[in-house]
């Protein structure tokens, strides 16, 4: 959906994976306008063996002139090469592509179509299961007490066009919508169940105007330079290639707008009494996530990542969510959920023995004890960083 006057489409060949990728807009008036694409494909065809992957995940729009060319290339090449198999990789986000390419697969059994869908990030599936939703709500309520004051320091003002990328169950979007009255608020996530929940909750609370959209944060359909303020909370830390998402956050942000991210450094969770036990468990929690390619130590690295993404005027700060913020039971409930999810779920999945899991659980129990103790202190630190898109 980018301006066709700038860069209608691009092609790329990854030799290692035998993947020919076409991205962008393909709406030519005449087939001859696609001469370079045809030539590139034919060169690739001469070089590949076995299965050729044709990636159209980011081929956002194609007219029938363009599709006729693609159809001819795909079906024609299989007729010429009986040894070859082609797998077209589509995206459910785009909407039309799977249906359109599947029609071609009926013409030749060696042409398959695979839809890249809710398996975008299979490692995170356990974070999105239904039982975790209440605790996500509690977490957002607790962080919001701080962020409502933090966000204006990073440039959020009423009337802005805002995108909340990796919005999860959408509760932050609702709070931001109520507090900052944006002119537009798009909330994007790759979990359909989370989006369904978000739409239902927004409807029940009479909040209308948030656009909840399905998408892959690393390959969004949102247009360039659309938003004054782009948020991405607690998400970069759970993607193994955060730079891909950051590049997208920057792309959709207007020049002069700001990209705002929050992340944890989980080993810095604190609590007293039983500080040592708590410290041990959160150090282990950090290692556990690292074993699943997630970096819960990302928080203080945010500044560096924003700088590498080309942002300027970078601001970074940290706030501590504590048992003294309001309801200590809320804090304790959040830790209890973590214990269930991480000590009894992820740790078991990693293959940890019972003795480890018992000690691992104890640190969470001690954190809960600290939160509810009359003179105890329990904290969960969050790092905030934002940067301005030049231009």
């Amino acid at each position: 959906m980018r301006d066709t006057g700038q860069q209608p489409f691009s092609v790329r060949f990854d030799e290692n994976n035998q993947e020919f990728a076409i991205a962008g807009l393909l709406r030519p008036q005449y087939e001859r306008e696609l001469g370079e694409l045809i030539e590139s494909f034919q060169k690739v065809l001469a070089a590949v063996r076995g299965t050729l992957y044709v990636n159209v995940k980011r081929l956002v729009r194609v007219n029938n002139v363009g599709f006729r060319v693609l159809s001819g290339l795909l079906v024609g090449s299989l007729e010429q090469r009986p040894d070859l198999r082609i797998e077209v990789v589509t995206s459910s986000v785009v909407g039309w592509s799977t249906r359109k390419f599947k029609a071609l697969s009926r013409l030749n059994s060696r042409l398959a179509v695979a839809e890249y869908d809710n398996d975008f990030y299979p490692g995170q599936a356990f974070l999105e299961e239904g039982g975790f939703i209440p605790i996500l709500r509690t977490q957002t309520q607790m962080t919001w007490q701080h962020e409502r004051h933090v966000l204006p320091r990073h440039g959020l003002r009423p009337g802005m066009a805002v995108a909340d990328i990796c919005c999860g169950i959408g509760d932050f979007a609702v709070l931001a919508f109520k507090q900052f009255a944006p002119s537009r608020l798009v909330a994007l996530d790759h979990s359909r169940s989370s989006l369904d929940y978000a739409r239902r909750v927004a409807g029940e609370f009479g909040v209308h105007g948030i656009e909840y959209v399905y998408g892959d944060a690393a390959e969004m359909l949102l247009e360039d330079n659309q938003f004054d303020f782009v948020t991405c909370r607690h998400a970069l830390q759970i993607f193994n290639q955060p730079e891909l998402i950051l590049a997208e956050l920057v792309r959709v942000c207007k020049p002069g707008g700001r990209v705002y991210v929050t992340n944890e450094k989980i080993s810095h969770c604190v609590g007293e009494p039983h500080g040592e036990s708590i410290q041990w468990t959160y150090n282990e929690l950090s290692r556990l996530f690292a074993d699943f390619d997630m970096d819960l130590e990302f928080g203080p690295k945010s500044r560096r990542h924003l700088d590498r993404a080309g942002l300027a005027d970078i601001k970074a700060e940290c706030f501590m969510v504590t048992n003294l913020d309001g309801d200590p039971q809320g804090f304790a409930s959040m830790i209890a959920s973590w214990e269930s999810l991480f000590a009894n779920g992820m740790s078991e999945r990693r293959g940890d023995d019972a003795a480890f899991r018992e000690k691992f659980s104890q640190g969470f129990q001690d954190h809960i004890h600290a939160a509810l103790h009359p003179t105890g202190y329990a904290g969960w630190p969050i790092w905030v960083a934002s940067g301005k898109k030049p231009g």
Partner: protein
Amino acid sequence: MLIENAAAAKTGFESLLCISMGVDVFASDWLHCDRISSYVARMVSHNRTDSVLYSNLMSSALNELLETAYRCHGERGELSCRVLRDGRYDRIELEIPSDDKARAFFAETAEVLARDDAAEQYRAALFADGPVDPRIGLLELCVDYAAKVQIEVFEAGAILLTAQFDLETEFAHA
């Protein structure tokens, strides 16, 4: 170009947006099809369940209609594009200035679309030798978008090309 938000125009369907421009201006640049379809799609999709997905589908459908009009139209007069909504259903109405050639093309296209073999015809158009069949986009709308496409040819001048669809239901994910 005239852009207006019109009041209710037809029973059951509420008019959301209408764009009118001289057909000579429209036909002066192929990119107008992409630009108009992208703009209109974005404007009418914000309150659909998934605004970005809907906009992408809507743009694809409208673009095919506009490209058909671009390829076959009369030389003078106004081209109007109106989007109407009735619940889940959207209807696009293109009023296209015509001449004898355009009237003949659309009359023949109406007969083609009236047959019940749109999928076969679409496939044939995809793989036919020679230049693109200008009705390929309309065939695809019937096949991939489950659109009801209607063509009314008026002796006096304009052609009314209408496509009606329920994209949210048709493309609902399991």
